[in-house]
């Protein structure tokens, strides 16, 4: 591989996969807002049976 090609491959990986990692880290650090406006409660769920494991 030419140096230029290797460089472009690394830059693309850093930006795209790096962007993915950063966006996941940012989301995990603050998954939801804690200062939402009042209201906005949903109706009860139709599928109440499943236990929620995720955020």
């Amino acid at each position: 591989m030419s140096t230029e090609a290797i460089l472009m491959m690394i830059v693309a990986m850093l930006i795209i996969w790096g962007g993915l990692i950063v966006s996941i880290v940012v989301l995990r650090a603050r998954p939801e807002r804690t200062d939402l406006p009042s209201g906005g409660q949903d109706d009860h769920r139709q599928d109440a049976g499943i236990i929620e494991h995720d955020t």
Partner: protein
Amino acid sequence: MTRFDSTAINAEGVGLVSTTNSTAAPREAFTGQVGFILSAIGSAVGLGNIWRFPGVAYENGGGAFMVPYLVALLTAGIPILYLDYALGHRFRGGAPQAFRRVKRWLESVGWFQVMICVLIAVYYAAVVAWAASFFVYSFGLDWGDDAAAFFVGEHLQLADVGGADPWLTFDFVAAVLIPLVLVWVAVIAVLAAGVVKGVQRANVIFIPLLIVAFGVLVVRSLFLEGAVDGLNVLFTPDWGALGDPSVWIAAYGQIFFSLSVAFGIMITYASYRRRRSNMTGPGLVVAFSNSGFELLAGIGVFSALGFLASQQGVTVADLNFQGVLLAFVTFPTIVTEMPGGAFFGALFFGSLVMAGFTSLVSILQVVSAALQEKFALSRRAATIGLGLVLGTISVLGFSTTTGLILLDTVDAFVNNIGIVASAIFMCVFVIWVYRRGPELRYHLNAVSTVQVGRWWYACVGAIVPVMLIVMLVQYIITRIGEPYEGYDTTYLLFAGWGSVALLVLGAVLFTLPRWRGREDFAPWPSYPPVDAGTEQKGSVR
């Protein structure tokens, strides 16, 4: 609205319409962020990521393509994704209902998007079915030495459409028909099970499995002889390409088609997100996952192409490096030539099936949601009804000896004209004409952790519509000037332009009947923001 106390506000904010319409079922919802993100990734990551991106990047400047690609991701992909999210999440409906809540007549734009999904679903299911067949074939390397002849001749039994030959037959091919029927049964079963137990569950299983299977495939192909040459071809930058407008248009087109935006999917999925939930943060994860998977596919596909080129003593440019032929002709050839090929083939076609199936589920969920909401149908009635109708059309059109030609034509016209026009309609009517941009941005910012700045208006109000209008006009001029793929012009008139006409006709016909679903609706949080006394701080500037 008159405010009395906080409970009254809550009741109104919630839209406690269930008190006036107690028979209406509450809206389905993803169980949480992970389920939503995986489902949205499942929708965005489809066949296009695997067989379109690598070839487009290679043809448009190689390594230099990353520049317009990333610019397009940031200025068009993510902004349009946010527009879809905001519409679906704020107005709590599939495409027709969400647009109707923006402005009553815009329901027709929603149905235009539903029609796009209808036309895509009928042929997309066929490709998933082919991939499923090839998954089975790969265990015995059934295609032998001539994969092209096997795919076109034995598997599809394509009628010769070189000259005055049949353009449309109803000679069914059992090897295509049976898997196609099975795909429809499977997808309808998933949809009928509901958003949580069907859509979300399928994605929670298939997406991690897809990433693992495809990851193994890519790592394996990196160690093939000649892989480095393939990567060299893909990533060597041609900086001169950056001065070519068509390269930029290709980048915007790639981002736009691969993210599954602007034809109702992301609107529908966002509407199944609970009201009090973060939208933009997960949106970034989805957008970068989609691009991340494309990059992975580019590396895997070009490593494998480099291997095949070295085996056959040709250059990568001589191979079919894009589209249906890449998947069903070039890849089987690679599999035959490599050690342990059967396993590699099963991984590749298994990945195609999973990527395609999860996208097909999302495409049909758009149709299902629209029918449920407009005609007040139960989920089961809507999914079984649409399954029977669309499944029949799909089998009639695409399991015959002329299926490939019809598929190719409908795909080209619906994508390049239908979806592009749909995005232009969205931007023009929602942002320009009815000026809902500030409300939608307020909504996103009020519920989300990552804040959307004013730059978003520039993207969805100017950059995206301008780029797309240029793309659309250019495409239409090209299509008028030269028949698509040199196909018969009468055939193209019906199959190609006819598909576009069908989108418009369907949009009108489905808008006309009376809306039978719930009509009363209050968006939350209210806009313009209510005064600081009743709303908590944190509403966004």
